[in-house]
């Protein structure tokens, strides 16, 4: 097997175990109340981190570029209560526009 195939098999199995541990082990058993409170808050931390890392992250360095303008425009659009799709399109357009400026 080529190196790419070995890595493929290891990652497919390993990733599946990570993905399925929650649903397969926890199932629909109710979590203790304190833990449930934490789990209710987790998505906020996660979504904020995903937004930040995908905006200024570039491997192991912080890169401030046109993506940040896109995020700010998205924030303004959300504050103006514009629809989801419009928010995304405006963010892309603003980012492309900033890049088009020489």
């Amino acid at each position, binding site marked *: 097997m080529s190196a790419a195939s070995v890595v493929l098999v290891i990652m497919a199995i390993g990733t599946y175990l990570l993905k399925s541990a*929650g649903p397969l082990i926890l199932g629909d058993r109710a979590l203790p109340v304190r833990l449930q409170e934490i789990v209710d808050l987790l998505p906020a931390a996660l979504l904020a981190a*995903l937004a930040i890392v995908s905006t200024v992250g570039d491997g192991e360095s912080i890169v401030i570029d046109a993506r940040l303008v896109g995020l700010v425009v*998205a924030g303004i659009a959300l504050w103006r209560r514009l629809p989801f799709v419009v928010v995304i399109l405006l963010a892309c357009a603003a980012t*492309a526009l900033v890049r088009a400026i020489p």
Partner: protein
Amino acid sequence: MGEPISDEERRRVIRRQSASIVGAVAPFGIVFGAAAATAGLALWQAVGYSALVFGGSSQFAAVEILGDGGSIASAAIAGLLLNVRSLAFGVIMAPALAGALWKRATMSQLMIDESTAVGAAQSELRWRRYGFLVAGVGVFVVWNLTTVIGFVAFSGAGDLIDDLGLDAAGPAAFLALLWPRLASAPQRRTAIGGAVIALVLIPVAPPGVPILASMFGVAVARWWPTDETVDEGGLR
């Protein structure tokens, strides 16, 4: 988060959210396909990564490392480290994914950033499940199709993403899904905490770890000074 709307309307909103996020994935699928071809993989291997691993950034990392002549161990470890966050996604989504063992086992393969983001953004369990599945299946189909397209047809797809600003679609979508939660003070503090933790860790931790560590943002919400009048006054 809670204006009462009809089930049909709710489904429409979730499908629209999913469509945007699925569309945002397409150009990256093309880039992955092109990167896999460049790194010397066969088409079946590229699709194997997209279907069996199904974790965007981890696939990029592994293929990049292999293409640069990295060892099997370094490629696999970097890739898996990027996917440790799926473990946390699984804990968040588990209550919404209840059911027969085979169903839970099948749905688990869809445990990625996008499906968790759309699912966790909903407030009721059944809508969390619906959002998770619509976004998860949508991304799975588009990701694999675009992997093939990228492998076969594109080599300069990276430029296209930059020129059209498509790399801003992901950040905007994550912010949009977070937005309704920011109305609640504990959620807002958690979000700020998570964002700061992730930001600080980007330069010092391997990719994937900052997002995982953002979980500790929950602790920030708990330790935040709870005197509401001082807190709210300070914000204005």
